[in-house]
């Protein structure tokens, strides 16, 4: 058994030595991930896990990769993408430039899904997609744009459910069990590390997506992130959250109006 106090000590080390602050993460998930890592790497005692994190910078990298949850998909929640396609992009399309921020983009499946929507709407050329995450390892994968081929069948189904009408396989080249997404989809993607805990606003956007990231934060940290998004959104910009997340309890909510069904809010002032 790992005690809550031990977790506090470990997180404190990670903050003091490396500057990553996990104090306001959802404790239940964090604890589960730490217990999982402890078992995976077969530590004889918690003290040894703590020692390894304190002394080996390479192990810290693994620690970050394993305790954050990077699971993602292309066109996850097709109905969400359908609303982007039919309601949001036509509005954004009237602007001279479109700036989109994917905060907590993980390995990029969501960013590439967006690039496909923009390309199909003939808007990709005047768009910029900022893909950020705190974990540099996942960003390497965004840069490569290569995903497991065996996922493509499901992504193709979700793409069609989102209103896509093309043959999804025209968007990638299959090779040795891997699918390499077309280069032109990557051209407008800008990749950078950004930590929602400690970094500040860096641009003004027309659309910010932060889906299934806030579930890993406690309410105080959720509030910090939502304020950061509020500062980074232009008036009439859109904020999209995961299907079980909300800004209902946030102080920023008074300035936002939710679209009918999906977790998309429009900034009204």
């Amino acid at each position: 058994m790992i005690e809550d106090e031990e977790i506090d000590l470990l997180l404190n080390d990670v903050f003091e030595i490396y500057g990553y602050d996990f104090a306001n993460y959802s404790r239940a998930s964090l604890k589960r991930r730490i217990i999982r890592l402890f078992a995976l790497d077969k530590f004889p005692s918690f003290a040894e896990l703590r020692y390894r994190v304190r002394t080996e910078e390479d192990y810290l990298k693994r620690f970050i990769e394993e305790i954050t949850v990077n699971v993602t998909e292309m066109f996850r929640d097709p109905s969400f993408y359908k609303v982007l396609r039919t309601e949001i992009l036509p509005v954004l399309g009237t602007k001279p430039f479109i700036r989109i921020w994917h905060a907590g983009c993980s390995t990029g499946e969501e960013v590439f899904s967006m690039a496909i929507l923009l390309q199909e709407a003939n808007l990709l050329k005047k768009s910029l997609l900022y893909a950020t995450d705190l974990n540099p390892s996942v960003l390497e994968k965004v840069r490569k744009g290569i995903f497991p081929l065996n996922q493509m069948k499901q992504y193709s189904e979700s793409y069609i459910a989102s209103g896509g009408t093309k043959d999804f396989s025209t968007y990638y080249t299959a090779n040795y069990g891997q699918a390499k997404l077309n280069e032109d989809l990557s051209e407008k993607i800008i990749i950078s590390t950004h930590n929602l805990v400690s970094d500040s606003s860096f641009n003004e956007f027309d659309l910010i997506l932060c889906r299934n990231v806030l579930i890993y934060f406690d309410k105080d940290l959720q509030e910090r992130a939502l304020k950061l998004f509020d500062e980074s959104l232009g008036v009439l910009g859109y904020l999209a959250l995961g299907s079980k997340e909300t800004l209902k309890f946030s102080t920023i909510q008074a300035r936002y109006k939710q679209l009918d069904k999906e977790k998309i809010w429009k900034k009204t002032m």
Partner: protein
Amino acid sequence: MEENDVKNRFKAVVIGGSAGSLSVLFEVFPALNPRLNVAIILVLHRKYSGDSSLSDLLSTKTSLPTKEIDDKDPILPGHIYLAPADYHSLIEKNYSFSLDVSEKINFSRPSLDVTFESAADTFGPSLVAILLSGSNDDGTAGLKTVKEAGGFIIAQKPETAQMPYMPQNAINNLEIDLILDSKEISDFINMLNQ
């Protein structure tokens, strides 16, 4: 266990079910006391994701307020919470939910084990965990953790389960406190904290 002890120490009941468990809930829910004093947390394997009509359907079977969990929802006594499809539901020490999209466990998301284990950590001896019908291994490891944390564990009587494998697996591997049919399950829940 003392009769009195069973009655008053509980805060939450986590019910886990897979194939064949819906019909049990349709019998248990209408029989629940409308002045129930514990929270009920329901984790079900579901065939279709993105389908939130299950909570609507379940809410027609009880007068207790029933909702599908949103992230950070508080856990209140007398309320029924349904774990959403495609997320694991975890429980924080301040009695609220955190959702999680991490890897499937036992081929399932939601996984019964994940919620049982997380609830055991928060509620310890004030938790009842109930495992219903199913044809999956999920749930047994979670019940074990609940028991180790001092909680009370129940399996559906396999003869009454459409899919006896899941409760039978728990019975074969653990010291189950009670083995009950659906009528006895509702009676048991109604007796808590009254």
